[in-house]
């Protein structure tokens, strides 16, 4: 494994082979998992730096690289670079909307998508369009919204949606984002569900006797009342997931949104974490 700083100041984390090959999930690997970056450069840079400091050996992006935020070109380039270096990325509904005009979104989100579309180059748009809906790696599944119907972009609001997602996959642990609020669901061998709002920095062992749905908070637009950027670390040997919160220069990210003529609410909500 090697880590380097690229010319753009982005911390790049390479796998051992550096060729993007899948690792088998055995042995000790520390994963850094990011969801809903939403073109927020300040937040994603801060998260990557923390993940790097914690020894992340592999990066997972759970989609929605763009939308809402004011640095889509940078964000797509960053994720493209990470994927070149072995990261896994899946598509989110905002990424999908760049190439598909029929998307049903609220007015602000739609305005941001229109604006983003004009900013991205052909190769950047192609990269987003070609991202898979889901990826399985060992006993882990990565998907943006949930596993039952990934292309319908449904939200996991509670245990019933979580149960549907868990039942739809053979994976022991599913990682998703989309709702911008961290949560951790499990299903016991008797198909009983538990729900839990993770405590930051307290590792939780994803016990092998049950199946889990780890819903990540958002890197670039948290909506749980805490404006700090959210991501998670997973230690594949101890099976421990640690939800992390990273303070970043929210004001700068909000100012970029305003300066680019995007709807002001998209800037204001970053400060509120709503």
């Amino acid at each position, binding site marked *: 494994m090697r880590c380097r700083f690229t010319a753009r100041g982005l911390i790049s984390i390479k796998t051992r082979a550096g060729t993007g090959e899948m690792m088998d999930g055995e042995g000790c690997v520390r994963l850094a998992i990011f969801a809903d970056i939403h073109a927020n450069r300040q937040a994603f840079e801060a998260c990557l730096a923390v993940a790097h400091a914690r020894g992340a050996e592999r990066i997972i992006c759970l989609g929605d690289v763009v939308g809402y935020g004011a640095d889509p070109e940078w964000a797509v380039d960053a994720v493209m670079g990470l994927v070149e270096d072995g990261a896994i990325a899946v598509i989110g509904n905002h990424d999908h909307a760049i190439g598909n005009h029929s998307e049903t979104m609220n007015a602000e989100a739609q305005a941001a998508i229109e604006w983003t579309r004009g900013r991205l180059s052909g190769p950047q748009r192609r990269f987003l369009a070609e991202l898979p809906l889901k990826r399985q790696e060992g006993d882990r599944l990565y998907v943006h919204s949930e596993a039952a119907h990934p292309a319908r972009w449904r939200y996991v609001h509670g*245990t019933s949606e979580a149960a549907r997602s868990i039942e739809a996959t053979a994976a022991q642990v599913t990682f998703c984002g989309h709702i911008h609020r961290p949560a*951790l669901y*499990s299903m*016991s*061998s*008797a198909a*009983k*569900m*538990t*729900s*839990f709002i993770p*405590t930051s920095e*307290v590792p*939780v*062992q994803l*016990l*092998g*006797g*049950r199946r889990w749905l780890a819903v990540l908070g958002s890197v670039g637009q948290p909506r749980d009342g805490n404006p700090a950027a959210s991501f998670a670390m997973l230690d594949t040997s101890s*099976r421990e997931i640690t939800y992390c919160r990273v303070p970043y220069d929210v004001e700068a990210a909000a100012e970029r949104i305003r300066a680019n003529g995007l709807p002001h609410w998209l800037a204001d909500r970053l400060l509120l974490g709503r």
Partner: protein
Amino acid sequence: MARPSIEPGAELDGFTIGERVHQGGMATLWTVTRPGITAPLLMKIPRISEGEDPAAIVSFEMEQMILPRLAGPHVPACFGTGDFDRQPYVVIERIPGKTLYSRIGELPLPYEEARIVVGRIATALADLHRQNVIHHDIKPSSVMFRPSGECVLIDFGLSHHNQLPDLLQEEFRLPYGTAPYMAPERLLGVRDDPRSDLFSLGVLLYFFTTGERPFGESETLRGMRRRLWRDPYPPRKLRADYPPWLQEIVLRCLEIEPVWRYPTAAQLAFELAHPDQVKLTARSERLQRDPLSTVWRRRFNRDLTQPKPKSDIAAQLAAGPIVVVALDTEEGSAALNVCLRRTAAQLLATLPSARLACLNVLRLGRITLDRTLDEQGNNKHIDRMVALRHWAQPLELDESRLTVHVLEAIDPASAILEFTAVNQVDHIVIGARQHSMLRALLGSVSARVAAEAACTVTVVRPRRLASAPESAREVAADQA
């Protein structure tokens, strides 16, 4: 993957299996050894074959998550866990001796012995709650004691960790636990209030001092639900010689509403450690249960059955600290004591569940250790207690929140530090005297307390008067 065989001599993850020492409904216990670990070890293996109670699996999973997070003398140390994908197990320290259940045949215990035993359990619970864990199955068979006397809590299969998923949350429609000891709020599905453990400990204390279980042994939900409105017979009705202070403590633990119980296990341990200072209320004298009118009001009181907002154990504990104010009652400390009272008042105003212990050290000479009478023959000890109460009077604290303590010691700092360690004090408020002959000779008590205490220390110092003229300061600087 095939499950490894569990039999004497077999190896599992470096542990060598010894003999089977227990075969229970939920799990089997084996002695194990491992090179490099000298402590005696137990391997707990859940019963998970077809048709077993799913509770066995879930409660094992809870232990598997919680045990490795726990530390300290009041829990068995954890040396390893194995997951369900191969062979589930936990390896824990084997605590020698038997559980408290072995004493059931001797009940009722003498009051003094019960006070000490339950005080130790309360101390262990306080330590557990500080680690964000509620035990939820406090009963005699969950309690052991180290040879040193410290209580060790075992069996965390029904426990709740405030920072981990609660796997028992939706698993069972009925609350899971041991019926005679279960707190009433548990019957309403509440699993995040540490005061549920204080209720169970109250049941144990009642049982161990009267020989009777306060709520009987009913295992039916209907029978258990009665405790939501029906209080138990006061122990004094069962035993005429029951000490009022003990009845006060027992009935406060058994309050139906958690808010009327002790705010923290540490405060309960404090009361049990100082029975002479227990504030006796109407509870202590009662001979009858509540009148039917009260019972009926409770039964149809919607407040009790309303779900409460989720509570944060750490925040709840922080709201009920034990605060010590260390006071000097000698001449010349009046100004400092006013400052100390002001600081104490400000602290207590924000913490309605806090309790205050006023401390004074009666310094003994190294040679004349036993001179507790002054030249006029007055008892210095009692004089100091009176002075402490006088100091505290303007705070207008409820008596149940206030205690006074005169410690006799050669070294005041050590005495204060020992008191605060034994009584699990959370916050010490102590004055610093600035121009004291004694301080020059003996060093500062407050500085040593601040440096060595295991809790927060506030050092109160009266504001210095306006500074001396320039010339005087230069002289002082030269001398420094």
